[in-house]
């Protein structure tokens, strides 16, 4: 039923622009003609691939989802004298000593910050202009302030609840609990056919888990394992009688003609599952990185992502959107011991990922960003913090102007500050929608009705003549 060994993919070479690229046999600016095409086995490509790389070239998004609510006001700490004192007043026994902080400066306005001591790699990237933070961002339906918070503003459902706030970041529809598509899924519904010539592997790729973020009306994320890549059919094509029976019986059963459309649909799905996994692994295993990744949850996941980015040519994808998830941030207890280990893992893994993107020659083509349910109460519960709202996110790459801050870091974190709705829960001053709009527009979504389809509340924050809501990815 399927032509499993057909080599149909033809990519339009656009000229090799980097020496590294030749050495690597892959890269972001163009495809090499022979090495990569020869890896194209078992991918039942049917569509013409001539449009595989649109004029605007390759871009990827990598979302690192920090599950549980990253205490991001202990990751990025205000470090001007008054602001640090306010921080200490708010955080009490959770405050980090000033001497331990890694000093960084906002090049735009001169404000001083301290990055947590466990993130020296990120401090260096920030100072090198490669990395930035978007501050006090959170889910909103419409702009909220202290006055309308208690009097009439439409508020996201289930504020301070994990399940709700996680869903809100993913759907960008915080007024609904019944939204079943995510904003990146809807974006892929819009983009996929023009940027992805791969009939079996979605432009939305997830490490280990299906998720709402990347699920659209017609798009389902392609899920791969952090260590092993795609789930191949074990033993298929292998040696030994059992594997030979498996291989032949699979091929035989999947090539029967089924008049029952459910049966033929299932046979097609199974055939694709087998072929897609082989195709994905063949393409990604051909990407050999010299960059060493830490053997941590995030490190392994980003290593897999880097390989898929390096293989985007043979995968015939000129847009890729990745989701990496890491749990463990719900630090009601033991914040000061657990949280630094997690921050260190983020920092080391992002540094390796940065280096791998440099090695692939595509740092500016890939934007990497964190999201998290919420930041946490500035106020201590004894030895941890509880669920709050606005928080700070890391953004790297994509050609951003790093070394400066985006959004607005609160002027003061002192208890009772104008954003504080109790216990140091801060009203976000930048909405998730603005954050997402910046990413989507950078990715090629026009700021018109399409953006509104993807982010239904966006007009409460961003007018139709704005080109970069945060001014970050220009």
């Amino acid at each position, binding site marked *: 039923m399927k032509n499993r060994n057909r080599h149909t993919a033809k990519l339009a070479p656009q000229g090799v622009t980097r020496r590294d690229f030749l050495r690597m046999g892959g890269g972001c600016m163009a495809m090499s003609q022979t090495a990569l095409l020869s890896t194209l086995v078992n991918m039942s490509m049917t569509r013409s691939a001539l449009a595989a790389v649109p004029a605007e070239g390759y871009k990827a998004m990598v979302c690192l989802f920090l599950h549980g609510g990253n205490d991001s006001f202990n990751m990025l700490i205000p470090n001007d004298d008054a602001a640090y004192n306010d921080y200490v007043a708010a955080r009490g026994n959770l405050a980090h000593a000033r001497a331990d902080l890694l000093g960084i400066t906002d090049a735009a306005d001169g404000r001083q910050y301290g990055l947590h001591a466990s993130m020296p790699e990120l401090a260096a990237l920030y100072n090198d202009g490669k990395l930035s933070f978007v501050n006090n961002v959170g889910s909103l339906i419409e702009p909220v302030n202290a006055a309308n918070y208690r009097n009439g503003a439409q508020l996201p459902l289930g504020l301070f609840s994990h399940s709700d706030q996680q869903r809100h970041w993913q759907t960008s529809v915080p007024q609904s609990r019944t939204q079943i598509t995510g904003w990146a899924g809807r974006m892929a519904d819009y983009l996929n056919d023009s940027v992805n010539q791969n009939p079996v592997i979605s432009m939305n790729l997830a490490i280990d888990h299906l998720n709402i973020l990347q699920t659209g009306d017609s798009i389902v994320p*392609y899920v791969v394992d952090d260590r092993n890549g795609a789930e191949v059919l074990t033993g298929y094509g292998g040696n030994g009688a*059992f594997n030979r029976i*498996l291989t032949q019986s699979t091929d035989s059963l999947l090539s029967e003609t089924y008049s029952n459309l*459910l*049966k033929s649909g299932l046979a*097609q*799905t199974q055939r694709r599952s087998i072929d897609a996994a082989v195709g994905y692994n063949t393409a990604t295993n051909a990407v050999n990185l010299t960059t060493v990744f830490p053997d941590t949850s995030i490190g392994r996941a980003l290593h897999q992502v880097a390989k898929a980015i390096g293989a985007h040519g043979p995968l015939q994808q000129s847009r890729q959107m990745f989701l990496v998830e890491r749990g463990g941030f719900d630090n009601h207890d033991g914040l000061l011991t657990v949280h630094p280990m997690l921050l260190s893992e983020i920092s080391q893994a992002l540094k390796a990922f940065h280096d791998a993107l440099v090695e692939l020659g595509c740092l500016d083509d890939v934007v990497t960003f964190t999201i998290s349910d919420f930041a946490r109460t500035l106020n201590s519960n004894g030895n941890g913090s509880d669920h709050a709202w606005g928080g700070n996110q890391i953004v790297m790459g994509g050609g951003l102007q790093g070394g400066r801050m985006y959004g607005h870091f609160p002027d003061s974190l002192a208890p009772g500050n104008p954003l504080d709705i109790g216990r140091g829960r801060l009203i976000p001053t930048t909405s998730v929608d603005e954050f997402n709009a910046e990413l989507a527009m950078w990715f090629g979504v026009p700021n018109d009705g399409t953006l509104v389809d993807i982010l239904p509340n966006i007009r409460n924050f961003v007018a139709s003549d704005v080109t970069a809501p945060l001014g970050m990815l220009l």
Partner: protein
Amino acid sequence: MLGRARPWAACCLMLLISVCAVPSQAGSFPVPTRQEQSRLQAELQAARFLTHATFGPSSADIQSLANQIEKLGQVPALEAWIDEQFGLPGSYHEPLAKQMISDAGYTSPVADGVSTSRYRDDAWWHTVLTAPDQLRQRMAWALSQIFVISQHGDGFNSRALEDATGEPMYLGIVHYYDMLLGNAFGNYRSLLGDVSLHPVMGVFLSHVNNAKATATTEPDENYGREVQQLFSIGLYELKETGEIKVNKKTGEPIPTYDNEDIRSFARVFTGLHYAGANFGQNRRNFHAPMVMAEDKHDTEAKTLHNGTVLPAGQSGMDDINAALDNLFAHANTGPFIARLLIQRFIKSNPSKNYIRDVARSFADNGAGVRGDFRSVLKTILLHTEALDTYNLRLMKKTKTLEVSGSGTEHSRLQEPVLRYAAFLRAFNPTTDHRQGYLAIGDMSRWLNQQVYRAHHVFNFYLPNHVPAGELQTYRTSRQVPNYQLYAPEFEIMTSVAANRIANRFRSDVQDADVDLSSRDATGSYGFDVFLDFSEAEALAGDPPALLRHLNLMLCRGLLEDPALEKLAVILAQETADPTTRSRGAILALLTAPDCAVHE
């Protein structure tokens, strides 16, 4: 699309029968004698029925029901089986979960080291794999996919004891599941009441601590909407046949409710809070129905469906009961629930006749009672469209019995969880788990489906999911409501999931056991669930006979001859070793489209 007549399959014009049966290619079995023919026919009918009504049959189950079919005839035997099931005591999961925890040597269900999810999963698997009350378990599983909750709710995974009850919070969702089990053979209206007042649903759809309007706040509309959309009447007005009614002028479906109805129902569901706590207090109690704080309940008049008005000043519980009565009485509820249940038990696209007959048994069980699930279940399982779409024909010349289904409109892709459970049950699972439980645990990575793990209130898949491909343009017979075919289970059968399920089967079949791990008070340990392939292995010398045996066990005889013949050749060519041959055959059939899609 709606309201536009489509040409229907020509066969329906030709055949004056209620069911448009299009025999597809057949599987065939040699039956040299009349006796063998009668026996095989009974076995096939038993195997297929038990696939509908249980988590899958063992050889012994098939033999036992086949005896009854031979003795009484098909329908009387099946009805007797159902009646026997109605009489069995329920096997409940929460007491078993607690027993498992205690057997594992923990002094308390909230002791350090007790996993909050393991025993919920293990109690579910152990029960569906071993409990005699299979129909009740199947019905609860079906209901859990309509009245959906999941483990993704605030406090559902908390390893703390509830102040009011002393029960572990993380077993609250099991308490909810047991409530479904308790109502499985009861009445829809009682179930709807129990669902609406269950605190787990209160959290999941946020009507716990939902206060009447104040100067600045409005009641939460979540439950007010979903109790209509998902649990009772659905989005559009339906005929008794399940067809969507259409506005003749605009051609548009007629909505069952508007935003005003949602607001009315939202106001009905105000004032509920945890038992043993004050209104607004987050003192969780997942084990007792929510109770009413009258001063937080909206006491103004509310207009509901069909002109029903709840008078001002009524008590909160009177409001809720009257509102649920209003939904129960709605003409949509019978056909809406009928279709969802048929999809879980029999087929993805029940015909208009089938939905109508089940809706009528919902409306009246024959004794004037509305909403009786026993009557609904009997109609679903014994309807001609459940039984007669399965064709057994004796070919006298060749002395073979031919088995065929009725094609696309009479099929469903079996849910992964049911496929896996049926596989295990087919091979008499035993275990060296320290306490003897079939503690299968969390299989969601492999199956893309697992109890308590729906991502949202819309279940694992939508009842109206249409996968990309030919099904979207298929021209249906006019028996199909609104000429549209659905295949919900394809929503979780992704290009990733297909290999994962196949790999799970492969690993288990290759070793004839499921390799698992568990933990008790002394620490972690590995154990196995062993599968008995001896019956198949004994037939390995004769590949066609081996495959026919497995065809009966795993595919209800529906693996078609051409496929079977090719598999027999492959088996004979590749090995003479009976173990490898039988296991290769089992694995092939487990993933064969003829077997995974039920006709």
